[in-house]
């Protein structure tokens, strides 16, 4: 299962990582080098693992569920003290430039209307979205 240049481009996209073309050859070589050492696992017989001996070992058996509620986390400072860009208590991000977005009803809305979805006016604020 050798990793190809296309594979690296694909997983870099999934991981939201910009990979420069100059790094691509090295990454392909490094990932193939590492994954070659993983092939040994395919030879291991794991057929005897059962529900009494789950794949996650102790963790699956001992990790408790908690109630679906939580108290406030004490924060030292306001959002403005750590978020890159904030306005009126909301985090500001760039507009989705190359993707259409879907409303809850399933209607696809062109990108230019994204800011309007979150309460802004495209003409007033052409480059940002409020999350």
């Amino acid at each position, binding site marked *: 299962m050798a990793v190809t240049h296309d594979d690296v481009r694909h997983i870099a996209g999934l991981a*939201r990582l910009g990979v420069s073309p100059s790094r691509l050859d090295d990454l392909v070589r490094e990932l193939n080098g590492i994954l070659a050492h993983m092939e040994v696992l395919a030879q291991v017989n794991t057929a005897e693992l059962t529900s009494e*001996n789950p794949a996650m070992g102790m963790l699956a058996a001992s990790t408790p569920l908690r109630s679906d509620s939580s108290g406030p986390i004490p924060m030292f400072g306001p959002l403005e003290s750590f978020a890159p860009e904030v306005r009126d208590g909301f985090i500001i991000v760039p507009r989705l430039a190359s993707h259409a977005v879907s409303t809850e009803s399933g209607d696809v809305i062109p990108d230019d209307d994204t800011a309007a979805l979150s309460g802004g006016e495209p003409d007033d604020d052409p480059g940002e979205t409020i999350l």
Partner: protein
Amino acid sequence: MSVADFPTLTADAIAARVRQGTVTPAEMVRASFERGRSVGAGRDALNIVLWSDEDAAVKEAETLSSQFAGASKGGRLAGVPIAVKDNIATLGLPTTCASKILAGYISPYEATAITRLREEGAIVVSKTNCDEFAMGSSTENSAYGPTRNPVDIRRVPGGSSGGSAAAVAAGIVPIALGSETGGSVRQPAAFCGIVGVKPTYGRVSRYGLVAFASSLDHISAFARNVDDAALTLEVMAGVDPRDSTSADLPVPSYREQFVSPVTMAKPLNGVTVGVPREYFPDSLDAGIRKLCDRALDSLRSLGATVRDVSLPHTSLAIPVYYIIAPAEASSNLARFDGVRYGQRIASGDGLRSMYDATRSAGFGPEVTRRILLGTYVLSAGYYDAYYRKAQEVRALITGDFTSVFADGVDVLFTPTTPTTAFAIGSISDPYEMYLSDIFTATANLAGVPAMSMPVGRVEGLPVGGQLIADHFAEPKMFRVAYALEQALGDEAHR
């Protein structure tokens, strides 16, 4: 006691003197900073410290002193300066994970472990260098340059918690916090000649530890002796409602388990020590093997029964670890996207471009490599062959430990590392670096407690011996470690 004695004082001794009133917390904090300056803890020398503020730390110490009143002269760590790996959240202080993507980030909350240490009187004097997001075995992957080993500055201190290990080894602080995902405290403890302990998974809350691989991460401790390591763990341990994986079990006093060979000739009578043959391969450094054999002789002389055992899936630990850890990392590190905190690189071409630009500029080569590897093994078509298979083999590795402990073994003894500290820049192949964790990653995969302690030196470089116990059997582990430490005495450091 003179403040000049500070570099040799244990945390327990400092706290005792503070409680007695013979020294003040502020004096101890100043002594810590003075020691840091004298050994060159800064960027231009050992490069141990990423952040420190002497005035703020002294002020905190003076505030602490003012709180001592009447019978309450301070807690178990009264006035003890501590260093904290920079991937553990410290309220109001920087927490960068040694990454450019978190440069300038000030933590708005605090790890539970830190809060508990502060409540007992500890004072955070520095945030320490580490491999970026704890991904590495040498502290060379820091965005702020490598930390140097105080024992030999040409060599790495180990990693990823190399800065904290070096701070303790250099006498800047008596105890420090690190984190473990595959051995990131035990391996640097071995390389620097100090004690490093990783508790059972769930023993110490992970709340406030920046997540790398959540099923493998542990907040862990460094100290110069077993007693201080036990003390630190006692303070940090216990259930925490903010970490649902923390165990709701009582925390025993580990130090009450200590029996010295001075007071009892055979303090380990009735204890069975297992020696797994897979940890003593033919390729093991001869000097390390000799020191481990000497430690095993000491354990026998202390009354322990020593017998060979087998953990047959040990050789699979590194392939399993380097599938599961990157897989979890690829998910955990998705949060660093320039939206809510940390650095943002504006590309001028929309949200998706901002994500790509921020993450590619913010993450270093090793973090990038592991995110890609983790994304690959989780992606459609490869999940079953890699990730699912690795989880299954992880269960077999865990089963190895379950079997030997069920068969009457109390603790296992192994070398901590296959080599002594290697030279800075000497390992460039990623997988060769990963093999540094070959004797330590198993305990993280199984969630069992383990610790490294000094057992001697080879050509002047420290060698660590590793003790591994069953889940929540830290008392047995510390009991054996303390007796061995007493028996080896100064021989452990030469």
